[in-house]
């Protein structure tokens, strides 16, 4: 589904944010990427949606080599990856319902079914009846849920959640984690980037740990090695 092969991302000033990173994610996986701030977690997400271009290496998403992708095909790749941004990127002067509607319109969803779909999504993420509220009228955890609802609105095969529990209390963090687990159980491949210790302790899925742009550990990789 997703393949990072010897991917390096560096900037002209010499900063190397990802250093020869190689991993694969299969359809239906739940991958947790951990690491301190600046370890390269967000960079992996941005490379995945072609918001950044790798300096070296190859990234394949759903069979498409992103290094060879034509610019007109980038939107299609981005529609395959639902993204929960660290800063939410919820459009402030649109209601929660309108924010989700945008993604459905982008995906070419049947206009007659959009209202029901929005209602269903809000219900699913636990903010039922908040469609007509603006982001400023929601609590932090509710905005996070709205961001997840928007990310999964068009039923993308992959969901990338970048620090989905940042600044949330422990109880809400666990709720968000459980929500992502549920989305994964429904068949969506989920990649969660986090430095939240609570989530790391909860996680019993594959766990990839980054430090200064390098993969330090890949639990599944370890498991495979043990099996070998």
């Amino acid at each position, binding site marked *: 589904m997703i393949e990072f092969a010897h991917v390096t991302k560096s900037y002209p000033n010499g900063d190397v944010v990802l250093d020869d990173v190689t991993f694969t994610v299969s359809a239906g996986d739940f991958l947790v990427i951990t690491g301190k701030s600046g370890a390269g977690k967000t960079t992996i997400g941005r490379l995945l949606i072609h918001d950044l271009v790798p300096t070296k290496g190859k990234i394949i998403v759903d069979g498409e080599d992103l290094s060879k992708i034509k610019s007109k095909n980038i*939107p299609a790749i*981005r529609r395959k990856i639902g*993204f929960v*941004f660290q800063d939410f*990127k919820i*459009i402030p002067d649109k209601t929660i319902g309108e924010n989700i509607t945008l993604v459905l319109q*982008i995906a070419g969803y049947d206009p007659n079914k959009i209202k029901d779909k929005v209602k269903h999504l809000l219900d699913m993420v636990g903010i039922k009846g908040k469609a007509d509220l603006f982001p400023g009228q929601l609590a932090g955890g509710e905005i996070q849920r709205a961001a997840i609802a928007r990310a999964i609105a068009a039923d993308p095969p992959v969901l990338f959640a970048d620090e989905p529990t940042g600044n949330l209390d422990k109880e809400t963090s666990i709720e968000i984690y459980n929500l992502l687990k549920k989305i994964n159980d429904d068949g969506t491949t989920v990649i969660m980037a986090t430095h939240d210790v609570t989530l790391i302790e909860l996680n019993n899925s594959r766990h990839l740990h980054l430090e200064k742009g390098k993969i330090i550990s890949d639990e599944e990789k370890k498991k495979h090695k043990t099996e070998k």
Partner: protein
Amino acid sequence: MNTALKNIRRSPYQALAAVFIVTLTLYIVGIFSLVTTASHSILLSFETKPQLIAYLKDGHTTDQVAGLISTLNSTQGVKEATYVSKQEALELYKKSVGNDPVLLGTVTDWGIVTADILPASVEITANSPQSFSNIATVLEGSDIVSTTPQGKKEIDYPQDVILELTRWTNAIRMAGLVLVIALAFVSVLTIMIIISMKISSRRVEIGTLKLLGARNFFIIKPYLQESIIYGVIGAIFGWLFTYISVLYSTPFLAPRLGSIFTFPIPIEIMLLLLGGMVIFGLILSFLSSLFAAARFVNRSK
């Protein structure tokens, strides 16, 4: 469409500026379309009327007239030469005064207007005003063309009028064209700047939409719609002001141009003008948004 209307509501003064400049441009387009059509019709009516009239002496014979008409018909530049008898001249006079009993009963120095006091004439239609002097030379050589007490042949030909009218018509067309092009340019520039400013002010939102997988067309569609709304509303207002101007000037124009045009101007013609103006408005707004969109696409590469 909702986003486009919301964009307009958010910045009403920018919308007002865009609609105002399109209205002004299309008002000028409307007025100049009518003026150009009118001047063309006036010119055409002059060109299709007999352009040279040679008044004949009393007592001419049929053979003499036939000889003159034959000579004229073989003269280069003559389209048609027709004899108008005294009786026909009276009929034409009656027609021109509209059977007004006061005018028909006018007592002249020669008495009440009758066929006897009106001269017979030969009316000549020329292929072009350039042939007038050549035809006039032929008429001046004729014995049956009457002579004024000053010894000049009685030949009327409005060469100067037609040439002057042609010159004015061309000048009006050119001035109108230059004005319309200048205003169209200002309109395109104004709408383009307004749309570009709006795109620029929402670049964070646009950035998010791109990350969510929106294509460029999806992003610029509300702005294209907004621009088209300006074009259509501007065209409708421009047309309304044109129509009001036409109705206002009808009492002045009708007695002067009533023989060439129907007054008030038929609604069918005005609706045709509205159609043309809406198309022109759409072209202007489409071009403006196209340029704004091209700038956006270039910047977002």
